[in-house]
């Protein structure tokens, strides 16, 4: 008998008959058996959320046919949840103070379980290796490592004292709470979000006709639908709409497809044709004038010519999804992360004044102290407004569109695929032959034809040569990350602290100090959680994270990356940006990097970024509530924009953050909002901002300035 119409599976020790052999295990678990602890997330085998155990080994259930799994023993998170031995492990995860959406968690616990089975006392390195197949969109990796270590110790202590294990504290891993993807409300519609393919463009037109005719489609919503007075009951908010007409960054939502199933919604997205037009360059610096800012916004502004008011309704980080349902003026909202304060501000401050009652529930992974998550996404806002428009419950599926998800995934997946810190691999990206400056070149060498030495060991070279070799542009955040990792690796080999080691390789004391400062400021490259808020301590950082994706790279080879670091002084009397460095870094192709580096003298962004007068904050965790807050963002400019900056300069001039991009502005506002809230306990809906000083290395200055 070779032909198989159905196969039997062994799931959690129970026989499950009559499964179609070509079904995926994850579908059988979730759809047929309603074992919802196993999550379905990326569906391409990249994220590890669907991990289960097959004969005791972790495997991806989204890449496994039932036919391949028959005759083998499958174990899901539900079995672990009822297993006293695994209780310590699950408890270690649920008692951590990491506020995440929880989508990846059951997979992580499964891999951790397999690890602890094989090795009850793993080292951190081994834990990293074992968890390297998991992508946490909320960047909780360090928490996971801590949790596994804790569980290993706890289990060890447990077996020594022979105490009975406690019951699992959290319900989420057992699949008993309702995750966004598990909701089954009657009449629920599924929404998928179309992100912009390009940055720095306007949407010249959206053709949704074909998409509207696609099977199962209920509506295709664009900015036009979202900007109606009737919906918001007030005039549209000053920033326009939740859906963009002017696109600042890749992945910015431009349309939503709502359909009966997620597959139909995604299919409809593929039929939407968007016509992009380059944003007119002359308008660009003026674009963010906020001419129609609401009246109350400027109440505290100090200097009208410098003031920037901004209403925050956009957010950057990967989306966790949301489900919204209106009954009259009553709104039920389920979000993966607690609606962050910006969403609250956006939704309930101005959009929906007629709201009578709000029921919000947070499906996410509740930290022990119940603190809200700061995972930013406007999924909740999109779901609420779509639901209002269509008068049906709407689910914006987790990670089904979202904001910057793919680039963020790229970054983190790079992090995860370099568990060994195999950094020299990536560092070859840095081509020594094209270094813009060679400070070590002696005069005799400059006379003859330059003979670049063969690049023997890139890591070594990075450590010993001028930091000019470290170029970070918007497409190579991952490279930056990896370079940092390689430095760490090399340092470990030399048994030194990475920074100390690197400094020991630099002879020139001025350069050494610059690097020391830069490393201090950019420690976030080596610490994943520096990217986002992952704990209460870090919540106040207000990190804005922006990426430009690969499409942007293709669209604009001359694209320029801008790195903005803002230090916010939170003395509430004068909310001001204490110090700010705007840094242009060169674009994607090496030649233009070098050319621009020569023009501006800013050849190595990392080290240059820390030119600032204010004393740097040593440890953000230690920073007092009224201290300094740092927000960082990165965005892209096109060539005309850069020319504008070069031609007109920014130092001392009117400079609106919006004029760089609203992502930058929002990053700044994020930091401000956090600062204000921490200092006053108030939730700001609009913020006055004054740019005290923007330090800018103009080409002229840089030419005479110190070479770093």
């Amino acid at each position, binding site marked *: 008998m*070779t032909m198989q119409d159905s196969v039997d599976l062994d799931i959690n020790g129970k026989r499950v008959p009559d499964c179609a052999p070509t079904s995926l295990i994850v579908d059988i678990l979730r759809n047929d058996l309603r074992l919802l602890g196993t999550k379905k997330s990326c569906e*391409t085998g990249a994220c590890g959320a669907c991990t289960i155990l097959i004969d005791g*080994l972790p495997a991806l259930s989204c*890449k496994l*046919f039932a036919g391949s799994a028959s005759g083998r023993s499958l174990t899901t998170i539900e079995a672990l949840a009822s297993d006293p031995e695994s209780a310590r492990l699950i408890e270690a995860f649920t008692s951590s103070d990491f506020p995440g959406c929880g989508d990846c968690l059951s997979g992580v616990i499964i891999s951790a379980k397999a690890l602890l089975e094989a090795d009850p006392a793993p080292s951190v390195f081994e834990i990293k290796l074992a968890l390297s197949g998991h992508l946490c969109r909320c960047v909780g990796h360090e928490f996971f490592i801590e949790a596994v270590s804790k569980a290993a110790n706890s289990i060890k202590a447990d077996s020594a004292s022979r105490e009975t294990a406690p019951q699992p504290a959290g319900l989420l891993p057992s699949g008993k709470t309702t995750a966004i993807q598990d909701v089954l409300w009657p009449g629920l519609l599924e929404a998928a979000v179309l992100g912009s393919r390009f940055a720095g463009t306007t949407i010249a037109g959206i053709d949704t006709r074909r998409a509207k005719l696609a099977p199962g489609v209920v509506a295709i919503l664009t900015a036009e639908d979202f900007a109606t007075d009737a919906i918001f009951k007030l005039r549209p908010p000053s920033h326009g709409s939740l859906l963009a007409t002017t696109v600042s960054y890749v992945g910015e939502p431009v349309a939503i497809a709502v359909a009966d199933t997620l597959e139909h919604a995604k299919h409809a997205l593929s039929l939407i044709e968007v016509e992009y037009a380059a944003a007119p360059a002359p308008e660009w610096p003026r674009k963010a004038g906020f001419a129609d800012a609401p009246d109350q916004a400027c109440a505290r502004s100090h200097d009208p010519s410098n003031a920037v008011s901004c209403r925050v309704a956009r957010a950057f980080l990967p989306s966790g999804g949301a489900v919204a349902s209106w009954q009259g003026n009553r709104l039920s909202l389920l979000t993966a992360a607690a609606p962050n304060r910006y969403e609250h501000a956006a939704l309930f401050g101005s959009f929906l004044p007629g709201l009578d009652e709000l029921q919000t529930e947070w499906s996410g992974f509740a930290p022990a102290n119940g603190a809200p998550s700061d995972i930013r996404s406007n999924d909740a806002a999109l779901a609420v407004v779509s639901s209002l428009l269509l008068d049906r419950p709407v689910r914006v599926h987790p990670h089904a569109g979202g904001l910057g998800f793919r680039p963020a995934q790229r970054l983190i997946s790079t992090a995860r695929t370099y568990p060994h810190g195999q950094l020299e*691999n990536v560092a070859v990206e840095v081509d020594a032959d094209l270094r813009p400056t060679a400070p070590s070149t002696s005069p005799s060498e400059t006379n003859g034809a330059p003979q670049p030495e*063969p690049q023997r060991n890139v890591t070594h070279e990075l450590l010993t040569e001028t930091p000019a070799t470290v170029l970070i542009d918007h497409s190579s955040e991952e490279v930056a990350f990896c370079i940092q990792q390689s430095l760490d690796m090399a340092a470990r080999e030399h048994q030194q602290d990475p920074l100390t080691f690197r400094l020991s390789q630099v002879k020139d004391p001025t350069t050494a100090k610059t690097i020391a400062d830069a490393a201090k400021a950019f420690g976030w490259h080596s610490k994943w959680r520096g990217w986002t808020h992952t704990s209460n301590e870090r919540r106040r950082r207000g990190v804005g994270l922006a990426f430009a994706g690969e499409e942007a790279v*293709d669209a604009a080879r001359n694209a320029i990356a801008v790195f903005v670091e803002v230090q916010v002084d939170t003395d509430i009397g004068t909310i001001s940006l204490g110090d700010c460095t705007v840094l242009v870094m060169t674009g994607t192709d090496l030649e233009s990097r070098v050319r621009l580096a020569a023009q501006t003298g800013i050849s190595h962004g990392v080290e240059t970024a820390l030119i600032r007068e204010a004393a740097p904050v040593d440890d953000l965790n230690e920073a007092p509530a009224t201290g300094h807050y740092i927000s960082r963002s990165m965005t892209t400019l096109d060539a005309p924009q850069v020319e504008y900056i070069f031609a007109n300069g920014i130092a001392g001039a009117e400079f609106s953050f919006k004029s760089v991009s609203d992502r930058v502005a929002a990053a700044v506002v994020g930091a401000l909002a956090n600062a204000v809230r921490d200092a006053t306990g108030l939730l700001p809906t609009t913020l006055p901002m004054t740019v005290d000083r923007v330090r800018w290395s103009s080409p002229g200055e840089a030419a005479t300035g110190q070479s770093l």
Partner: protein
Amino acid sequence: MQDEVGVLGQWLQPRTLADASKFAAQDGTVLIAGGCELAGRRDQSASRFDTFVNLRNIAGLRPLDAHPKKGLRIGALTTVGEVSNHLWVAKRWAALHEATEQFSSPQARNTATIVGNVCAGHPCYDMATALLALRANLQIFNGTAVSTVELSAFYHGSGRPKLVPGDVVTSIGAPPPEPDAGSAFRKVRLMRRQPHDIPIFSAAAYIALDPKGTTIMDATVALGGCAPAPQLVVDAAIHLVGMPAIPETFEQAGQVAAASLAASIGTGALVDYKRRLARPLVRDVIEQAVSRARSKHDPFEDASDLLRDGGNDNAR
């Protein structure tokens, strides 16, 4: 939509190779070992295939023999993880070991197979790069007999494997390395520069030295991710043979490989960019392979260890 793709097509589980070959000869049929590739791209699979032939129930497709004197043999159902954990693969076929260690995620390694990776013919899949440098060969059963095909002759220019309907790849293997030989593999993950760019670039080398460890007696260099199929860089290998095993030689071989790459896949920004990567990458794998070739190990001792342990030591 869920229901529409709920059942893809026929699922066959033959118990003999002959049956598998018979099924594989039919149109719209695909063989499944680990199933990662097909399950991962299920929608495409549904449109391309209507019959799936699962090889799992066929006996004899799961060997993993790695003997320093007899060579390496990896069955069609042997997973990447099993190869990755094999002590002797790590010792004597280090390039393959390194490739498996960097393969995807730990979960994928537990189901994906080496042969599946090689037969998928995807330019990003790099088991073939390491195996190419190790002069691997495949055993292919065509319904009546088993033939042996060199991996270097296995791919069309388009990157598709040269298999005809009815062919079943039963194993992939490599000859035993010379006593004073070593191999290495390295891969670089890249940012995509253009649509359809291959975001992985890999290199592998096998180097055999004379007993004194000073002169290169035999060499292969392979590159993956620069063309639809992994390629042997013959020019670099020719350059290496007979040369002293010193850094200058490795650097020159890197330059030769870079030049050869430009000659074989044309010019342009993309090529230029990969060519720049090729030089240090090739140089480094050669250097690493030479270092391994010189490392102190006694092949006889290896063999006696093997006899004692049975060759299946899964210890790290």
